[in-house]
């Protein structure tokens, strides 16, 4: 999978509109690190971080390339988690179908929420998405199959495509890595497609894009649904990794956390959300003995980030190197 992923980027490298060399290099570095990492770092931590990295990339597609701040992305992460967990546990879906089903749930939810939210902008858009996410949250508290406070526990991981036993940690890790890389590359492609070009035009100057004959709302809706779908893919994968779908993933704090990750790493950058997700996850992991103080630490980091390096880690780095990363 890793090899094909590299070829994919390499093939797109020439021509002026192709992938810039620094991004190809950065992708190579990232992939190498991620392939080597499970032999050096606790794999379960890495898998969690990879799921959140994909989640943040999906979120970044919307805020970074359409300029819409969603404050309800937890709904897609969480709903897909419940979808995957329930279909695997109650209906006996194999892992590939469970993940697909969970992702489809998020996509469907994205169509409904997106169609209504996309009419508004700025703070109103953030509020509407938050309101819908809260509805999903309270639905998850009340509905029987979600297990309420307990969540859906001991979800079977099963055997992927009847071949790969996902109870083997390393096997599971490389499957998660493959899912992450596939999601990452698809998001990258969406941003650098004819569709992405129109999205950028709409972000830059919506009335002008409309005056050129683009129905802006349809492009925004598709971007929203794509973002929800990839957030769902992250959530469904996460549910299988932890064998758990719980209220944490639909809670509004999760929507806040993905904002932090993306901002910290670099809004509207290709690699920023990945770096941001790893930083936030590392903080939570290594500062966990501080208990509730982790939130305070996160808050301080958020403030420092906004005050001193607004472009985020990768944004500032890219600016320093004068390269787009």
């Amino acid at each position, binding site marked *: 999978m890793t090899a094909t992923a590299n070829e994919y980027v390499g093939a*797109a490298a020439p*021509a*002026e*509109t*192709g992938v810039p060399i620094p991004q190809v290099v950065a992708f190579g570095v990232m992939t190498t690190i991620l392939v080597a990492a499970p032999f050096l770092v606790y794999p379960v931590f890495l898998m969690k971080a990879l799921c959140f990295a994909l989640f943040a990339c999906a979120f970044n597609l919307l805020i970074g390339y359409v300029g819409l701040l969603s404050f309800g992305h937890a709904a897609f992460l969480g709903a897909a988690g419940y979808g995957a967990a329930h279909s695997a546990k109650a209906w006996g879906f194999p892992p590939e179908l469970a993940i697909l089903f969970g992702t489809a749930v998020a996509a469907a939810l994205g169509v409904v929420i997106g169609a209504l939210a996309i009419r508004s902008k700025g703070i109103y858009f953030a509020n509407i998405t938050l309101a819908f996410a809260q509805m999903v949250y309270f639905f998850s508290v009340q509905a029987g199959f979600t297990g309420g406070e307990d969540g859906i526990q001991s979800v079977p991981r099963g055997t992927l495509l009847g071949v790969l036993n996902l109870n083997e940690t390393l096997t599971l890790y490389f499957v998660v890595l493959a899912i992450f890389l596939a999601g990452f590359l*698809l998001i990258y*492609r*969406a941003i*650098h*497609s*004819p*569709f*992405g*070009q*129109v999205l*950028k*035009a709409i972000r*830059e*100057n919506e*009335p*002008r*894009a*409309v*005056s*050129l*004959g*683009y*129905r*802006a709302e*349809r*492009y925004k809706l*598709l971007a929203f649904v*794509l973002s929800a779908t990839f957030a769902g893919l992250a959530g469904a994968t996460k549910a299988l990794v932890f064998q758990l779908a719980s209220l944490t993933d639909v809670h509004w704090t999760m929507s806040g956390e993905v904002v932090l990750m993306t901002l910290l790493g670099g809004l509207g950058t290709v690699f920023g959300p990945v770096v941001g997700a790893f930083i936030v996850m590392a903080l939570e992991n290594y500062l966990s003995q501080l208990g509730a103080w982790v939130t305070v630490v996160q808050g301080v980091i958020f403030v420092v980030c906004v005050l001193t390096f607004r472009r985020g880690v990768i944004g500032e780095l890219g600016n320093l190197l004068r390269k787009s990363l």
Partner: protein
Amino acid sequence: MADDVILETEGLTKEFRGFVAVKDVRLRVRRGTIHALIGPNGAGKTTCFNLLTHFLAPTRGRIRFKGREITGSRPADIARLGLVRSFQISAVFPHLSVLENVRVALQRTRGASFDFWRSERVLDGLNGRAVELIEAVGLAAFARTPAVELPYGRKRALEIATTLALEPEMMLLDEPTAGMAHDDVERISALIKRVAANRTVLMVEHNLSVVENLSDIITVLARGEVLAEGDYRSVSRNQDVIQAYMGSGHA
């Protein structure tokens, strides 16, 4: 000559909470002309543009373009029919390059661009035409420059190139020379004259020498109403117009 009318409004009215911005305007723009819309500040010129392209919905009245009722059509659909507008504040995509700005417009000719799975390299086929358009407005040297870095006059030129990319039958230009240095005004005027050769132009313009130079016919608006209409000579001699508009500064 009625067949010659490409854009026509009847009783076009826009009211904002107790204030009538545009009142009962009857506008007839003949095909192939450069038609200027002038008037003092607050006369309703820009509101008129917004109504014609449905960036605002009229309170009353109808708009017909090429004999087709477009009063209720959505802005994007009006653009697709061939009535394309520019904006008072220069409307470029600031962080796209000059080439990309024009290409976004050319991309419309592909139909809808929902193909998020394809590489943007499929758009390279449009580069040739984009470069032609950029050359036509004298921006050839700036093809790779982000639009935000262009001086003001060049931005307006880019805007016109982008509008032209759609091959519109009719262009609405909102103050194309506003805020420009003298040289730029001349370049843009010449450009408008050139591109108007085989299309219709309706423009709002404050620079009266540009109006005199370019327009075949002039409609004067004041307080939302049509005050006078005719060629430059007859309009500039109209007592009402002198009173309302030119009296203070020009005439």
